[in-house]
């Protein structure tokens, strides 16, 4: 909410995960996240646990992206009805990340829409423990459904064996409340919802064994180095996000659809919590999202077609502590559209084709540096997955590819300064260069009398096309191995 992270190209193609996930669902809860509709849209039960190992490495990355990293993740997910009028869904995940070469950033997602990012010169191995817990409950009272979602996410990140230890701590609780009303006899459901989320993000850097430098990036302006020597550097980010919206969903025969819109505000402040009455940098965004989905079961009742699209726009303004007026502006848009044609299981074959398109337009203006950038991009992608059932065993194979094609105008590094050229410009250069990504997956599933077990492997790679200037050569490769059980 209120943010459009600028991730590294390559993650746009998503596999349908035929043997692992159920067919896509749409609705006020499933598409718009309105918990008030959960009891009306959920009838089955599902419990699953999975354990996942994955890793990523390679030279194709930006300065604030991590180097070689490994994840071990355990998670559980369950949904089901509560009596005749209630339903609940919840999941918990625990994640351990080991990064051999840390990002030079203290924030977990360094390329957010916000221009405020703390970076340092510490690249030592880092461990992160994270947990995510969320659950929604919903109850129907006749045609009215009411629901509440509670969530909490926390992360604890620490350098290992570092002469300049860095600890980063994040706690993010969130609440969503929603109502849904079924219009009798018309196959329509009307829903409204409100969301709130707060993040407290704390960075401590102890310069005890070696000198270090910290830079507080504030857009495209050349930052001033903060030299640490036997001192403690502390920054705290506090982010509060609000959103409110509504949606409409309907069904007619084998066709179901949903449309929603939400307004979202984000306010983030960054300050030194150890100072009395500290200077505070402020980042505020206002945005909106509209989206919708259509799903149709064709007459054969084995072909399920799903189309999903959403568009988000946000305007952001930054104010630096101690300065008057707006110092940085962002105007960003993102369109995500995807479709899926799925041949449902019924015979021995199962298949799905999933094309998608991502369009982004990001205009960012730094009033202090008098520099601006505009990056427009198209990312078409496609994923195909086929599965074969052999009695209790099923195996699946899939492949996906995407191409990132930007049109960009970025500031000339030579006109700003060496810190900009070292830390900021390469990030823009990567987003301004064509990139291509591909991935493949293989999975197997064993159905027992009770639970089903599955194993899945995936490998992917992304790299720039050609040899663009200031863009790292080579690939960024990622792999995932997942073992799961579904009840």
């Amino acid at each position, binding site marked *: 909410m209120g943010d459009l992270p600028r991730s590294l190209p390559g993650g746009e193609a998503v596999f349908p995960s035929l043997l692992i996930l159920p067919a896509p669902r749409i609705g006020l809860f499933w598409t718009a996240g309105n918990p008030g509709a959960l009891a009306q849209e959920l009838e089955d039960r599902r419990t699953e646990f999975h354990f996942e190992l994955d890793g990523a490495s390679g030279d194709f990355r930006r300065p604030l992206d991590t180097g070689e990293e490994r994840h071990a993740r355990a998670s559980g997910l369950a949904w089901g009805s509560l*009596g005749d009028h209630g339903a609940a869904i919840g999941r918990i995940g625990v994640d351990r990340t080991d990064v051999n070469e840390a990002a030079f950033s203290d924030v977990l997602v360094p390329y957010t829409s916000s221009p405020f990012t703390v970076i340092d010169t510490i690249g030592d191995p880092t461990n992160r423990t994270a947990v995510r817990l969320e659950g929604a409950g919903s109850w129907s009272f006749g045609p009215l459904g009411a629901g509440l979602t509670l969530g909490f996410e926390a992360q604890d990140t620490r350098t290992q064996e570092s002469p300049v230890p860095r600890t980063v701590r994040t706690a993010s609780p969130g609440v969503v409340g929603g109502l849904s009303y079924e219009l009798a006899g018309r196959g329509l459901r009307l829903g409204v919802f409100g969301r709130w989320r707060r993040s407290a993000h704390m960075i401590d850097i102890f310069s005890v*064994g070696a000198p270090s430098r910290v830079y507080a990036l504030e857009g495209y302006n050349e930052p001033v180095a903060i030299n640490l020597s036997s001192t403690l550097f502390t920054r705290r980010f506090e982010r509060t996000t609000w959103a409110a919206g509504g949606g409409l969903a309907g069904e007619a025969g084998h066709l179901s659809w949903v449309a929603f819109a939400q307004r979202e505000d984000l306010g983030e402040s960054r300050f030194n919590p150890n100072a009395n009455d500290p200077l505070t940098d402020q980042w505020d965004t206002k945005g909106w999202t509209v989206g919708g989905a259509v799903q149709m079961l064709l007459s054969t009742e084995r072909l399920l077609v799903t189309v999903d699209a959403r568009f988000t726009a946000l305007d952001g303004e930054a104010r630096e502590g101690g300065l008057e007026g707006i110092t940085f502006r962002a105007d960003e848009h993102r369109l995500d559209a995807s479709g899926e044609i799925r041949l449902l299981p019924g015979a021995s074959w199962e298949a799905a084709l999933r094309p998608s398109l991502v369009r982004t337009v990001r205009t960012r203006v730094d009033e202090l540096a008098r520099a601006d950038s505009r990056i427009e991009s198209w990312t078409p992608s496609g994923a195909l997955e086929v599965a074969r059932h052999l009695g209790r065993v099923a195996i699946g194979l899939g492949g996906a590819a995407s191409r990132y094609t930007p049109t960009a105008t970025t500031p000339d590094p030579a006109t700003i300064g060496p810190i900009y050229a070292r830390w900021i410009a390469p990030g823009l250069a990567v987003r301004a260069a064509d990139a291509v990504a591909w991935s493949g997956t293989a999975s197997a599933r064993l159905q027992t009398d009770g639970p089903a077990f599955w194993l899945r492997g995936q490998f992917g790679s992304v790299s720039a096309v050609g040899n663009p200037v200031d863009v790292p050569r080579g690939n960024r490769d990622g792999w995932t191995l997942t073992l799961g059980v579904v009840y």
Partner: protein
Amino acid sequence: MAGRITAAETGRPVEGAVVRIEGTELGALSDERGDYRIHDMPAGPHVLRVDHLGFATVRIPVSMPPRGVLHRDIVLVKRALRMKEITVTADAVSRATGELGTASVIDLEAIRAQTATSLRGILELVPGVELRPPGLDAVEQVSLRAARTSGRSTGAGGIGAEDLASFGTLIVLDGVPVSNNANLQSLGPRGELSFSTSASGGVDLRRIPANTIERVEVIRGIPSVRWGDLTQGVIVVDTRAGEVEPELGAQFDARTAEGSGVWGRSFRGRRQAGTLVLDIARTRIRPGISDDDAVRVAGQFSHRASFGEAAPTPTGMRKLVLDSRLDFFRLTQNLVENPNVRIGRSDRTRNWGLRVSERARFRIGPHTGLAFTGNYSRVSQNSRISADRLRGTLPFTDRTTQGRQEGFFVQGPYRADAELDGEPQLLFGRLEIEAAPRLLGFDQKLRVGIEPRREWNSGRGQQFDIRRPLQVAFDGVRGFDRPRDFSDIGSLTTLGLYLDDRFQTVLGNGVRLQAQGGIRLDLLHEGSTWFSRIRDAVVQPRINVELAPRPWLRLRAGAGRLAKSPTLRQLFPAPQYFDVVNVNQFTNDPAERFAVLTTFIGDPTNPDLGFSRATKAEVGVELSSGGASLSLVGFRDRIHGGIAIRRDPGFLLRERFALTDSIIGNGIKPEIVVPAIGADTIPFLLDRPGNVVDQTSKGFELIASLPEVVPLRTRLQVLGSLVRTEQTLNAVDFGPRDRFVDFQLQAIDARAPFWDPPTEFGKSVLFTYRVIHHEPDAGLILTATIQHNVTDVIRDDAATDTLAFAGFITRAGDLVRVPESDRTKSEFQDLRVPRGGTLIERASTPADWFMSVQMSKTLPLGGRLNFWAFNLLDRRGIFTDPKVLPRVFPANRFGLEILLPLRGLIPGRT
């Protein structure tokens, strides 16, 4: 045997119900269709038991035929008041066993629902105890009914009201006190260095793992006379014993990993039971920054045996019941040297304890019994500290007796090491006769007991290389430490005698009256036996009365006197060394360097030191009806003669000598010419323990458990505590240490002012709200806990103007008081200086709060998975505003905890 389990209200199948055949290992889980199937059931009569959270337990007698399948469908009925089954808080209105004073009782269910690594975490269910994240990060103590004060009036390492309260809180583990009286693991306030220690304070609660505890009773009010050696309340801890299903527990967060196991089984027709409990925990104190850690290994073996026939009484006690316990724990804390983080500094403490106790209860008659408790415990303590020191050139002596000798020079960097080995031991016994006669028309319960106790420490003591001392800067106040052997330290020997009576009766109109009163005599002996001369004695009458005019209303009041013995450290303080420099000639040529020092040894032993005495009084009202209860208690606790350091002034004689050769550069080392050519005096302060602290705490405690809001399945509990504490030191205040040192070293200053000590004031208003939501169908319990610090005040009440001085100290160490009317006279002009060292400006801290949550999910067969997040919003508190007191909340932490019953994992072939 097979069948289907359904819910009565909906007719839907019930998945995950536990079906067991009582008395066998056979069992099964119902599947998603509600079906269960148990194979190989022996023919004959059985009792089928079905359990599922949210439903009433069903027990059905069945008769299994020799062949075939017995079909039996089972219908489960939901519980009418489900929340009654869920206990995650302390019971507000129940009583500790055998006690009538105000108490909080925390049972096994509440303990399992509380995320805690040690006893300290469980005590957060008691009013006034602040929330902390679980872990073994630092020494953990708890104080009951006392607000924090500055502790400044007792000097460096001063004792605040909270310290005194934790020192006076009695911890009783399985019927036997856990004592800290013989703990000598401290370098003391004179040292420049210190390490983590609980010496002279309350018991370090980290040694008692939460996972091994079955029940905790916190007697906050007036304890019965059975309990001695305390000034505050009693925390009675019972560990798990008897027949316990095997269970494994594990807890993980970013800092702490803990594993525990418990298993107990009965044999010989359930007349005997053996239980084994083991817990291992490790906390990384500053992960990612250093390798500092704390590790605990704790275990217990218990054996219960009963002999003879059961008595025809409700308790059904057998003729003889023996309860044997063998406890051990090992707690280490390593703060390691790290070239990147902690340069030239490390310390390590290791505590290894063994505790053997035997409780025997012998039934003499239907209502008469004899109980004996015997205990021996020993803790091996080892502390090491190592630190790089950098000195300017200073003369120093290694003399360990009084007198004068040539010194040497300490200069430049060196590594100072010290090692402290202590072995505190406790021998405790209690013989008690219990009878239940009917006297004066009342049913009485009489207890008469004798309680001998002896504590001593046989450790090697404090050892270090005297030529690389921990501290060398003579300032007259501290002097230098010397190695000390604990073998010359005597023992702490006490004897307690008590008589306790409790009765109840029903007056007219159904009004129920209960009273418990008694008298206790504690004797403190001079020597090491109970036949040696009595050093101090204190008589302690105590009474509690409860009147219940209605079944839902109880009015209560109590008053009593308590006493706490001094510790070994206070009875036998270390000698204090003062090394006065007579000659200090430091030259470029080492051959010419020459120093002479005179060593004085001060004996700080206080022959008048005795018990700290306390009086406690409280009144309260309790309401309980249905699922709601309210307890409101007002209290006033006073400590008279609490023990702290009293700084006794004196003076040292510094002789001045002529030298035989004072020419620098000739390469000749001079000698002193005796006799001295002159002398001056240096005032000094001897740190002598004394019964000098008076403390008064008064306030209110509130526990309210509101009834469940049934449609929301939600309940609220409120713990509230308002405490005001005042503490004064019956001694004089010499101001900040550096000011007194300046007076000592400036021989031209003839006198220096002193002041009457400030009154330390503390106030705390703390509320803890717990909201408990329960989803029985999903097996979920969600607990949100909010700690609301309404206000905290720490202040020293003292005049600070230039006329506030009370008198002056001369260079001969004499104290001369100046009447208030004379302080404006010109002859006292030099004494009219502003007072320092008191905390008078920053008064209070504004209200603030933080919230923690815990989600508990039941697992099949009684297991449980807990997720917890401490300080969910990562609120930091206030510490940057110079106008208010700092209050820093512990940072956000999160973790998982799982309890797995082992017996249920494979309930049998299905």
